[in-house]
């Protein structure tokens, strides 16, 4: 069965921000929900994140952004994954995301947006039900 393959998720911290509590909590939760999790570590450039996504052949890329720079960072990510031809990967974003920015992020191509305070079960359920496993 196709579903027996574990979902592989990259949790990435782009840019200079070092607030990683949320990213680590989500990584832990996805792992305990049975997914395979790759955590990028801090201060990654978009190029580095896309390279990890290619090398690790993940199904999903999750960005954790707390500084307010989520729109330019996400724009850059989509530009890069298109260049690399991996725009079939699903992208989700978490962090400090004001509700007014959600339509813009969706327009850029983000599938799931999980602002701080989103229950972990919601994120897990979303990934399990939305992502087509490779």
């Amino acid at each position, binding site marked *: 069965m196709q579903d027996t393959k574990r979902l592989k998720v990259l949790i990435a911290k782009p840019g200079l921000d*070092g607030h990683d*509590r949320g990213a680590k909590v989500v990584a832990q939760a996805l792992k305990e929900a049975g997914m395979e999790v790759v955590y990028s*570590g801090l201060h990654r*450039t978009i190029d580095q994140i896309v390279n990890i996504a290619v090398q690790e052949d993940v199904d999903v890329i999750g960005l954790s952004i707390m500084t307010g*720079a989520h729109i330019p960072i996400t724009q850059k990510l989509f530009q890069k994954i298109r260049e690399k031809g991996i725009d079939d990967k699903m992208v989700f974003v978490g962090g400090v995301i004001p509700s007014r920015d959600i339509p813009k992020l969706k327009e850029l191509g983000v599938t799931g947006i999980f602002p701080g305070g989103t229950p*972990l079960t919601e994120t897990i359920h979303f990934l399990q039900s939305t992502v087509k496993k490779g």
Partner: protein
Amino acid sequence: MAVARYIKDEKDQILDVILESGIHVKPSYSPKDLDAIGFSYDKDVADPGEYPYTRGIHALGYRSRAWTTRQYTGFGTPQETNERFKLMIAHGQTGLNVAFDLPTQMGYDSDDPMSEGEVGRVGMAIDTLRDFEIAFKDIRLDKIGSGLTINAVASIMLAMYQAVAEKYGYDPKVISATPQNDILKEMIGRGAWIFPVEPAVKLIGDTIEYSMTVLPRTNPVSVCGYHIRESGATPAQEIACAILIANAYIDNVLARGYDVDEFVGRFSFNLNVFGNMWEQVAKFRAARKLWARNLKEKYNVKKAQNLFLRGLFGGGGYGLTKEQPENNIMRGAYYALVAALSGAQTTALCSYDEAYTIPTPHSALLSLRTLQLLMDEMGLRDTVDPLAGSYFIETITKEMEQKIEEEMGKIEKFGGIVKAVSEGFIQRLVARQAYEVEKGLEAGELLKVGVNIYKEGESMDVELHEYNWDSAAGQIESLRAVRRERSEKDVARTLKELESATRDGKNVMPYLVSCCKAYASVGEMAGIFRQIFGEFNEPSLF
């Protein structure tokens, strides 16, 4: 796992209360509880101003001096930040707490490709001394102290602060800076580290050594349990880490041949307030006692005033919620109350909109007024340590002391704080704890208004600070102007001297001051450190 929990029966009656640090709270306390823990007034608490300072470091507490109010402030360009500083001071704020943007904190210039999108976003952008000249214009640096919230490149920012003070005609001996300058905590939480542990700690040692003679009113290091707690640590772990981290910095300076009494009195602390209020009060009281005892017994500190835990106890951001954001105003007021009941020297609150972004002037002033009305209207200045003598508070203060010692023991057993941070031992502990807290919230064992109880009502929109892309462009333009105007010869010479001094293991502070005065940029100075020291290799947790 130590997650705070309420055990209740089906009628909502509380059967047991377990605090985050693992202490069980009883329905009531009496003198018998004090007897059971062997409580001694003289040994365990003593009068305010008397060793072990559980009740406070000054006999007269807030009667002799109210706390310093120091809201975290800074955004956009130095000009915008200078205006905000003046606004806060005009409204009665008594200290500054400077917020730097991430490129500055990470040692990049505003025009570095790494800085794109972040210039002036979460704090003000600082590239050269010219920026400090604008930021601190018309601020009385002899009267008002400045917290500089920066760590990896705190040495550079402290040098720049001295340079700006001298430029404006102040004797460095009269200025009072408090650079945060605690890199080990950045490696546990907050993440604004650059260099590996050893050179990073050496830079902190340099600032402490230098301040002894050149900047005697400066507090060269502010040890931050605060961010470790924000990252998920329990209150007991927060204090355990803070004390051990402070010891690591002491050890660095002792190894240079100084006597501990020459410098340790200038150490300060930045600790967190959110959570169960009794547990926090007990934590601060126990922390004062343990710090004093640690210095006296482990380091043989002689002078009484060098045993003081002087601290900023600040209302923690983790306690605030995105849901029903105006509730954060009330939360802030209670956090401030806890800080005052705990004898904070300095305080600050995260403002109600900070679950979204950096504060508007309106929300920052509301926080300041919260602090002011507590001191001036509510009677918090009347008497020192008003909760002392409560059977409950004295019992859990002593229990908290034991919990903190247990946590210190775990870290020591692993091989000490430096090893524990380098190898990710504490990071794993704290991340696990954060995860357990999240699960506790989802299971409803931990209650949070607007999050898992009383969720009714539309979530409201609040007015938010807007990021200004034009000010980023303006900052880059002014950096380029400085580069055109400065003497390249002086810049090259001072940077070369900094490089040699760094390679030779000398104290870098005087060289940094010369670089700053020549208008070398933060990126140029940090670039030398990057090249010589390399970067911290973050331990992998997953």
